[in-house]
């Protein structure tokens, strides 16, 4: 039963991806419905899926095959995403430990500061980083990102920086919240009564107990990191995976990229949720409510 469900879910998602990819062709530029073109595009997409080796995309007047180029871009995107989230997680954790070991008033000021930071549009940071890149170039002659690049050229430092800022702020707030909540629980008081140091309790008990709840938020986090990545690639002019969607837009390419994204995230979260569930089972915690996969 589980397997059948999984297959049906895959089929629905696949159909949706095809439909979404074909949707922009439903309207002509004069604003009329054009079902013939729509079905034509759907046929083309399905054809591409069957003959995937021959799939091409067109830049200017040149035609390039998608494979194996797309994997290079894909790898680049995954490196960016994973390293950004790892940096964000590490940064947030360090900050939370630092803040929780500080006196109360510093804790409060930092919490307010971060809620202010949280509402600065991400674009603001990205613009600033772009300006910093140019400033460094003017001062030292080292150009980290070529704003006029026309070919794919993997750069890591600044995109990762730009991608990290937002998840770091978000994760910091989330962690601080869940840590503070965990610290009010009776076992913490008991541990303090036993004479364990504050740092030890944080590291050995509170940290472990709250880490899992953090993973629950990853789904949403990845969602808006992908959106961010799109904007970042556009502003920094990186010909990455997301620009496949945007600059060389064609329905076939779009659906292939979407499918790759979907498969990645599906398996990632499927695995993670399985791990979390088995861990909870081992510890006798019953989870109720939302499980999406």
């Amino acid at each position: 039963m589980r397997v059948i469900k999984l297959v049906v879910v895959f089929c629905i998602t696949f159909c949706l991806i095809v439909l979404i990819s074909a949707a922009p062709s439903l309207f002509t530029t004069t604003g009329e419905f054009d079902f013939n073109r729509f079905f034509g595009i759907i046929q083309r997409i399905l054809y591409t899926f069957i003959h995937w080796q021959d799939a091409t995309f067109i830049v200017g007047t040149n035609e390039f095959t998608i494979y194996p180029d797309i994997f290079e871009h894909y790898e680049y995107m995954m490196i960016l995403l994973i390293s950004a989230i790892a940096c964000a997680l590490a940064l947030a954790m360090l900050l939370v430990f630092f803040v929780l070991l500080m006196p109360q008033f510093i804790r409060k000021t930092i919490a307010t500061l971060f809620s202010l930071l949280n509402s600065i549009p991400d674009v603001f940071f990205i613009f600033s980083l772009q300006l910093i890149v140019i400033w460094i170039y003017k001062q030292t002659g080292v150009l980290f990102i070529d704003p006029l690049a026309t070919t794919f050229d993997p750069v890591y430092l600044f995109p990762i920086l730009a991608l990290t800022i937002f998840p770091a702020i978000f994760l910091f707030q989330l962690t601080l919240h869940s840590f503070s909540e965990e610290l009010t629980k009776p076992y913490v008081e008991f541990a303090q009564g036993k004479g364990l140091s504050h740092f030890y309790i944080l590291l050995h008990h509170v940290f472990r107990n709250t880490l899992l709840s953090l993973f629950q938020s990853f789904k949403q986090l990845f969602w808006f990191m992908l959106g961010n990545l799109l904007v970042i690639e556009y502003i920094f002019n990186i010909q990455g995976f997301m620009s496949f969607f945007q600059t060389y837009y064609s329905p076939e390419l779009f659906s292939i990229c979407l499918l790759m994204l979907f498969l990645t995230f599906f398996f990632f979260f499927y695995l993670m949720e399985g791990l979390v569930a088995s861990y909870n089972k081992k510890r006798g915690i019953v989870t109720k409510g939302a499980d999406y996969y």
Partner: protein
Amino acid sequence: MIGLVILSCLLISSFALTNVTAFKSDPTVYGPRKAILYTAPYPPSAHHWFGTDDAGEDMLVSSLRGVKETIGYALAIAICRLLISTIFGVLYGLYAKKSRWLFQAFFRPFRFIPAVLLAVIILTPFKYESPLPESTLFWIHFITLVLIALPVLTEVIGEELHYQLQQEYIIPSKMMGASRFHLLRKHLWPYFTPRLKIHFIQQVTQALILMLHLSIFLIALQIADLTRDISNNYTKLMTTTWEIYTPVLVFFLCFYSFHLLVKGVEQILAAPSSQQSRKTEISTTASSQHDFTPLHSQ
């Protein structure tokens, strides 16, 4: 409530400045013998704190002027989104039982496709010199922005209601023969209306950030607002930085005020739980799960 103050200040100044031209400098300043000394855009100075745009207009004033359209547009989008997805969400939460996983499969792709991407894809064909009249374009943009958020919002609302239906106090009510409509009216609605306020403000901020991102992709929304300032000046980031930073700064202020509003509403919702009334306790435990939905997610 500071959020409300900032927001009202922004709005009042926006309306007040609509027809004021006092802040305009001459686009060119001539020296002796008609030599051009300076031309607009002027950099930030004592007279124009945030610099001026190409026509010599004070950047801060013209940005503030755009606030009302920006916020109005975002509010309209949020209202439409909420109205539609509340209807579907209630249907989904109340009636879907065995078939829930099917619906979830339907909603899932929208949980990993960024909304910006969808909007960009759908709106790009209309970007360059579309033969359509402006009003039609306006509606196309508006409807697209409303539609792309519907699946996720519907799912969230539906799941919330479903979660609430699992609560213990629902079971006796069901056993006594309460219909679904009765459950909705008497049990779910009182819980749901305060959540709706938070959803509303979150949707407004999401719409704002989506508009900002779209403006970077040079998709104009056919309204005279902040995002148009940004998308018009996007290419000038390197040369006349202030022309793009000022609108972004004003945008940040709008954003921050909504952010504070969310916090305020959540605090008000959480407050009565200390008085140990059972009903509110339930609602706050449920709401604490959603405390940290990021405002920026689109």
